[in-house]
Structure formats: structure tokens, C-alpha cells
């Protein structure tokens, strides 16, 4: 599997006033829920999907078993939205 990167058109940042992470892009913004933000924070251009899953597992040892499916689901949506690129 190839490493995942944030599309350079998008910027991920924490917004105090909204108390959440947001994705910023030309004249637009997506508010992220906490799990989406945790996944995107792992998208650093070095890790592939498996490495992201294992990083999140060690960060959240109490996470439920089916976390892999949720992560895969979000990554697929984020790819479709062009937020992240593969390889």
C-alpha cells in the first residue's frame, strides 16, 4: 500500500472558536468530527493505511475492534473528496 498525503490544496488546523479541527481550502471550510480529525492528523505523507490504523490503535488502545473498517471507510471518502492522495 502507498503512503497517504494531505492534498496540498487543503490545510488542516485546530480552531479554538469552533473547538474542532477544520479543513481549509480556497474560500471553504469543512468542520471535522473528532475521529475524522484523528485520522487526518495521521496522514503525514509517510504512513500507508495499515500504518495509520496501527498508529491509531496505539494512541487509542480502548478503541473498538471494528475501528479498521471505520478508518478504511473514512479514508475512502476522503479520497473521493480529494482531501488525500495515495502515493
Amino acid at each position, binding site marked *: 500500500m502507498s503512503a497517504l498525503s494531505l492534498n*496540498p490544496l487543503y490545510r488542516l488546523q485546530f480552531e479554538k472558536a469552533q473547538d474542532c479541527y477544520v479543513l*481549509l*481550502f480556497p474560500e471553504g471550510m469543512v468542520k471535522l468530527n473528532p475521529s475524522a480529525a484523528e485520522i487526518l492528523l495521521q496522514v503525514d505523507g509517510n504512513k500507508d493505511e495499515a500504518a495509520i490504523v496501527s498508529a491509531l490503535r496505539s494512541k487509542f488502545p480502548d478503541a473498538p475492534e471494528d475501528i479498521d473498517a471505520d478508518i478504511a471507510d473514512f479514508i475512502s471518502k476522503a479520497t473521493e473528496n480529494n482531501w488525500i492522495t495515495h502515493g
Partner: protein
Amino acid sequence: MAKPQPGPPLWLLAEVTYACPLHCPYCSNPTELGDKADEIDTQTWLDTLSQARELGAVQLGFSGGEPLLRQDLEIMVKHASDLGFYTNLITSGIGLTEKRIKALKDAGLAHIQLSFQGASPDINDLVGQRKHSFEHKQKIARLVKQYDYPMVLNFCITATNIHEIQEILELATELNADFVELATVQYYGWAYLNRDELLPTKAQLEEAEAKVNAYRDAQKSGPKFIFVTPDYYETRPKACMNGWGSTFLTVTPDGTALPCHSARMLPLQFPNVKDTSLETIWYGETDFAYFRGDDWMPSPCKTCDEKDKDFGGCRCQAYMLTGDMHKTDPVCDKSPDHHLIQTAIAKAGQSQKTLVYRDPKNAIPISIAETD
């Protein structure tokens, strides 16, 4: 009943000057352009940006007029990026050079939105009333990408250039745009003066939209095209500004704070950043809050089950068309004034008048229908 308290002003539009080297007849700036001497100074802008960021604003547009005419633009961009804003430069490209593109990049500018008035020198330079501007804009677009900015191209579509839609799609692809706004213009300011000449016919719009859809379907990569139909051809009004005073804050060149860039035309007293804090402007009880919530709504909005979707539409449009800013936006086919829109549509493609190009020497007050 108390008006609802809004969330933070997420979007700040900084109209840093009304001066512009172009003279587009579709410009939404007020036809009374104001005096350059009244423009607020650098320090007032920097303070305003700091206050807006403190309130939670995150998207910042530098617009105008042509923002590049402010020689302190780089200082403002630097300050804004240091504060954590996502900074957008909304420009005609006139006045942009490689040196400034680089200086703005160093200052932290996040994105450049470049306008085109057509897909050929003939149309582009005619609409903007400036020779060689098409050639210049193409050069600038290439530099913007060379310096790794996300680039949005904005084509304001009117009856004057709608026949070039195919060429526009091809030009945007060739220039490597990331997003392309194909925005059929809205009729405010200068555009309202020229509405009968600028409004495309329904047939022209349908043909253009079909070409955009076909192009999009055949696309494997390349720009994302966003086609905006004019609200005149809709049966429900737009959710103007996402609701009055809910998300957007505009500061005009003289420091007036508005819920949208057109609202100055309304018979209201808007506060000014020169003597009022942004916190008071956003959360206080000035006319800035006038149309928040739905207490002001007339019939048919008051009892309409869609009032939370479109907030009664655009207050400026209601005012321009009916003379009463409290009325339902005439775009809505439930509005008793909807015939005003139908009359305008019937006139599309018929006008023999010449366009009034945006120019301080042509500046005249908009004539407003008086009722009551």
C-alpha cells in the same frame, strides 16, 4: 423577542479599496464608489484582522475593487497569516507581477482567485475595458501555479460572454486551475444598472450548462467546475449569506461593517470599525443585527416551511426590486412581487441599450423604486 445569538463570524471579506483598473459592467460594487481619501489605514486594518480572528474568523478574503492597488497588501497578508487565517486574494491580476506573487507567498498568502472576463482577448478586454489584459491574465495564471498556489479561476458569465463557454472550459483546463467558478452574475451595484443587457436568456443558460455537464462527464482529471445559475431563473431565493449576520462579515474600504458586500444600499445605519469594536458589531444591537432571526419576516415567509432554508432570500434584492427591504425576495414564486423577476426575464436578450461600464465618472446613485 430577542434575536438569536449567532455563532462566530467565520468569513471576513476585507474590501480594502474600491479602486480598480478594470471597468466591468457586471461589478457588484456600489455605484457610489466613495472617496479614496476615506479608505481606512494599514493599522486600522491590522487591528480589525486581529479582532476578527479573536472572534473566530478563519477564512479571509482580500477583495475590492482591486486589492493589489493597496501597497500595504503584503503587510496585511503577513499579519493575517501569522494570526492563522486562511488568506484568499480575490484579484483581477492587473498589477500582479512575479515579484509580488513571490512577496505574497513569503507573506503566507494561501490562495489566489483570478478573474477572467472571457476566453478571448476580444471579449475579455472589452468587458474589462483594458487592452492586453487577457494576455496578462494568462501570464499571471501560469505564475500563480508556478509558485504553487491553489488557484481558482472566476469567470463572471453574462450575455456578453456566455457564447464562449466551451473556450472558457478549455482555457481553465490549459491554465491548470484547481477550481473554476462559472458564476452567472448576480444583479447588484453596476450589474443592476446593466441587468437587461447582462442577463442571459433561459435558452443560453441551458445550452451553457449542458456544455459544462458534457465537459465534466468527459473529464478524467483537471479543474473542478462549479456552475452557478442566476437566481432569477430559480423559483426559490438563495440562502443569502447563509443567513443575515450568521457567518459573513464584510468590512468596506471606509471601515463600514456589513453583513454582506451589498448591504450598504439598504436604508440602515451600519457601524464602522473606526469607532466600534468588532465584538460589538457582531454581537451588539446595531443595525448589523437588523435581519437576524425571523421576527422581521413578512408573509408568505413567516409561515413558510422553507424559511429556515433560504431565510427569506436576499434583503438587497427585495429592496432594489420592490423598494421595501422587508419583503420576500421576489425570486420566490410565492412572493406577490415575483412578476418583477418574470418581467426582467422576458426582457433578457431584447435590450438595445449600451452598457454602463463601471467608472467613477459614471457613478450615479441607483434609482430605487419608491413605494408607500
